[in-house]
């Protein structure tokens, strides 16, 4: 574990990276890679030198674990769903589904059976991923270190790869449905004739509309990442206090965080529904 506060914070924000190191690369301990191979990064420098050809094992592992937890739980209920008096678990699942159904009904007026389950997946998955933030910051890293892993960051939404991965998925869906619903000409017309409905302003319109479209996945991903990242940093800072004083700050912050987590999950879901609804609007 690192010594100074800055090192401590940096350490906690570093992902466990498994990536490709080129032959001839000099490692942290002075040894030189004899051939190009995949390995775990031992320092932040190594992780960044791996470039694009690397995986954040912790991010992927925990996000997939949360997704499986969510789908496993909901599938468990779905397989046993009764039309009679529902049990507590089924009630909980149904309340969640009704909540999502409500916001989809309000925000999305076209017919598409994908949208509501998509929104449900987004909401619960992001909620679970961000909720990992509430696990005390040292628990899992210390455990991982005992198992020989140098870095371990469990909150996937503190990794921009995770948030961008989801927002790019949403982006691809909006483009797909824009083409599917409006057709190529319809979509082109929407891009070219809005907001100024005049042929001479088509280039301006195109630039504006495409900019708006491109900005969306960035705003989606960065909003979620920024909020959870900031919260996590605050948790790490609180963890620098003497152990007997930490609860005075960490408890209020965690309680506040209970508000932030569902709010961010809700905003992400809501905006996704709005973007997809716009993609389905046929002028």
């Amino acid at each position: 574990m690192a010594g100074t506060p800055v090192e401590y914070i940096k350490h906690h924000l570093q992902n466990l990276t498994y990536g490709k190191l080129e032959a001839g690369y000099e490692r942290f301990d002075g040894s030189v890679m004899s051939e190009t191979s995949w390995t775990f990064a031992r320092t932040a420098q190594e992780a960044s030198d791996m470039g694009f050809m690397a995986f954040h094992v912790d991010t992927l592992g925990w996000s997939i674990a949360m997704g499986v937890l969510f789908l496993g739980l909901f599938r468990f209920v779905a397989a046993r769903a009764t039309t009679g008096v529902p049990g507590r678990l089924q009630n909980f699942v149904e309340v969640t589904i009704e909540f999502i159904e409500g916001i989809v009904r309000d925000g999305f007026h076209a017919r598409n059976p994908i949208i509501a389950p998509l929104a449900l997946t987004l909401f619960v998955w992001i909620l679970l991923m961000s909720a990992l933030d509430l696990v005390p910051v040292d628990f899992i890293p210390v455990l991982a270190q005992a198992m020989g892993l140098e870095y371990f960051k469990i909150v996937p939404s503190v990794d921009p790869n995770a948030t961008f991965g989801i927002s790019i998925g949403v982006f691809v869906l909006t483009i797909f449905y824009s083409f599917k619903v409006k057709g190529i000409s319809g979509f082109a017309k929407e891009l070219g004739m809005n907001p100024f409905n005049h042929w001479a302003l088509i280039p301006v319109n195109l630039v504006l509309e495409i900019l708006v479209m491109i900005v969306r996945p960035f705003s989606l991903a960065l909003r979620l990442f920024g909020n959870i990242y900031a919260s996590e940093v605050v948790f790490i800072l609180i963890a620098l206090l003497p152990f007997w004083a930490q609860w005075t700050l960490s408890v209020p912050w965690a309680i506040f965080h209970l508000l932030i987590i569902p709010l961010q999950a809700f905003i992400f879901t809501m905006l996704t529904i709005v973007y997809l609804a716009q993609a389905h609007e046929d002028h």
Partner: protein
Amino acid sequence: MNINLTLIGQSIAFAIFVWFCVKYVWPPITAAMEARQKKIADGLSAADRASLDLELAQEKAAKQMQKAKEEAAVLIDQANKRAAQIVEASKDDARKEGEKLIEQARAEIQQERVQARDALRTEVAVLAIAGAEKILETSVDAKAHSEMLDKLAAQL
């Protein structure tokens, strides 16, 4: 904070999760919810119908009660009349019977009086003959004077 293959891995995971949710999670739960909604709606309409039925039945019962009361009143009336008739009739009978009895008694008395008078008459005739014999000191020929004696007896 390096952008790397995690991004693509995350997108793939996202796609798979959405596919699974669309196919295996959402439909069964919403179907169960809709089925329950229908059940509840059916139950509510059945309850409405039942309360309507109850109202009708109560109305019918009230009508029947009224009818039964009226019938009972008629029956009681008839019974009262009949009782009065019977009482009247038996009074009549009793009076007639009594009169008949009195009549019979009178007839009997009359008969006995006639018998007694006859017996007395006969005895008076015998006494008269005996008295006359005493007076005349001779026997009176009953046969010869029977006509006179009968006349005498008839006068008594």
